[in-house]
């Protein structure tokens, strides 16, 4: 197993050669990946909004944004500029503190969760031992923010939306966590890096999607519900609730919700790729490819190519899932709140429990194939 390029180690080494002590060099390095990830996530979310517009337009036989920049690519930038320059209104008779904290409480955990998303063997902010569990934990903070937003707005639509969002997030957290647990059980680790490594070696055949045919479906449905995407977007159901908990929000606070929801979608797609689609692994193993092309796998240039390929593949998988989510948005009608809870508690939960049990059994019977 090659380690791939380790930017942190080489960066610190360079600074130590310049005469900095090890601790200081590490301190200089520390903010860089954070800034990079925050910027990257913002850009990814903006690209997601653009894709949403374009793919939605194509699905409806329209063109979509076209004149703002090439293919309307500057639309997200214009959105951000508009929302930044708008007046920040706090409506009368709201709870100003809760009202202001709520969007931050929704936004921060989502961006924080990106620290465990790996783009390569060492291309991750921290390889936490609890990795994927951190995401599950952080994503359960969001309902508090949504509930706060709904309550603080002092608006019945907002309150209804907030309540729905909380109910939905809490009930879909469980099948989500259980389907993740099945994957974790197979990889014997909660670390996202280990989960990907466990899938590596056999290219597309080694991916968890073949070992978890039910699990990935449960995960995707639950992830869509967590992100409040179309078939499950009833917290924001515009026909019934105006915009749910977002109704009273404007300018920057609205932007936090908006960016948060798209960042959450990207996060879910990325984690889907990590859990089931082999993360940064290419469909044809890179080491095998290197062997065929007769290239030394430890050559620096090959390492750079492999790392970039890993990042591109991770993003490609994530955006493929995003595309699927947008297609689903224009295919599936919105479910009612009782149907939503029925699906969550009476269908997904038992199925995911059975899936977990089955995975455990298979792991005992075929320890080779199911990571004994």
């Amino acid at each position: 197993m090659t380690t791939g390029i380790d930017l942190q180690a080489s960066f610190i080494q360079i600074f130590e050669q310049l005469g900095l002590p090890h601790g200081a060099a590490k301190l200089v390095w520390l903010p860089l990946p954070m800034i990079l990830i925050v910027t990257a996530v913002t850009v990814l979310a903006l690209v997601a909004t653009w894709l949403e517009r374009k793919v939605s337009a194509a699905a409806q036989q329209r063109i979509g944004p076209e004149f703002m920049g090439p293919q309307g690519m500057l639309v997200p930038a214009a959105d951000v500029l508009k929302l930044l320059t708008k007046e920040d209104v706090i409506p009368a008779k709201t709870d100003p503190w809760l009202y202001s904290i709520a969007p931050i409480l929704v936004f921060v955990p989502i961006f924080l969760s990106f620290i465990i998303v790996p783009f390569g063997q060492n291309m991750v902010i921290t390889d936490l031992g609890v990795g994927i569990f951190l995401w599950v934990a952080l994503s359960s903070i969001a309902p508090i923010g949504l509930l706060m937003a709904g309550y603080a707005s002092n608006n019945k639509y907002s309150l209804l939306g907030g309540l729905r969002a909380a109910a939905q997030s809490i009930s879909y957290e469980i099948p989500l966590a259980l389907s993740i647990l099945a994957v974790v059980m197979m990889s014997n680790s909660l670390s996202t890096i280990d989960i990907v490594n466990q899938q590596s070696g056999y290219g597309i055949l080694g991916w968890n999607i073949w070992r978890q045919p039910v699990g990935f479906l449960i995960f995707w449905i639950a992830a869509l519900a967590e992100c409040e995407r179309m078939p499950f977007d009833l917290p924001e159901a515009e026909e019934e609730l105006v915009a749910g908990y977002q109704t009273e929000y404007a300018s920057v606070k609205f932007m936090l919700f908006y960016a948060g929801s798209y960042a959450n979608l990207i996060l879910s797609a990325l984690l889907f790729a990590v859990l089931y689609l082999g993360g940064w692994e290419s469909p044809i193993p890179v080491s095998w490819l290197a062997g065929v092309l007769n290239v030394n796998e430890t050559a620096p240039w090959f390492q750079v190519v492999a790392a970039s390929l890993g990042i591109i593949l991770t993003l490609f998988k994530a955006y493929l899932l995003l595309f699927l989510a947008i297609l689903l948005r224009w295919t599936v009608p919105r479910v009612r709140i009782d149907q939503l809870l029925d699906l969550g508690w009476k269908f997904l939960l038992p199925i995911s429990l059975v899936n977990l049990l089955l995975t455990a059994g298979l792991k005992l019977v075929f320890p080779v194939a199911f990571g004994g």
Partner: protein
Amino acid sequence: MMKFLKQVTDYTKEAVQAAKYIGQGLSVTFDHMSRRPVTVQYPYEKLIPSERFRGRIHFEFDKCISCEVCVRVCPINLPVVDWEFDRETKKKKLNHYSIDFGVCIFCGNCVEYCPTNCLSMTEEYEMSTYDRHELNYDNVALGRLPYKVTQDPMVTPIRELGYLPKGVTSGHDLPAGSRRAGQLPEEILAQMEPKAPKEEAKAAE
């Protein structure tokens, strides 16, 4: 036990069926993505209005006999006919005529009933103004002819659905000289004519 098993199989069947339908729906949505957009890029492309289009009303001042039929058939008595009786010629003399298009519903009753055909419908529909009083057209404004979409060099004219060749559903990128489905009245007549004399001859015998 058997009842429980049956319930389980039924439930599974339903779930599989639901998944199948969602898959079918997804394939339909996906199929739509590769289709050409049906939208008309409005300021750059415009649809050619059909010949029965009920747009802004055109008025010919000299033809009008001030009979006020248009006022009577109008649902809201909208046209304003300002005339006076000329004692020398013993005829009504029209001074002014106006229709307020901010109020008009373009029903075409006035055009239908005008005895001298001095009213007609044009294909003009872009009449937005900043002040609604500007929509009150007098006889000069009513006498203007609209600019045709097909003659505007800035605009790509797009044919409407009813004017496309058979089986074609998009007005974009039509081959030159393509005709609408069906035949013109003249052509139908030309086809009928060779038969007609024979039948007449038979009738004479």
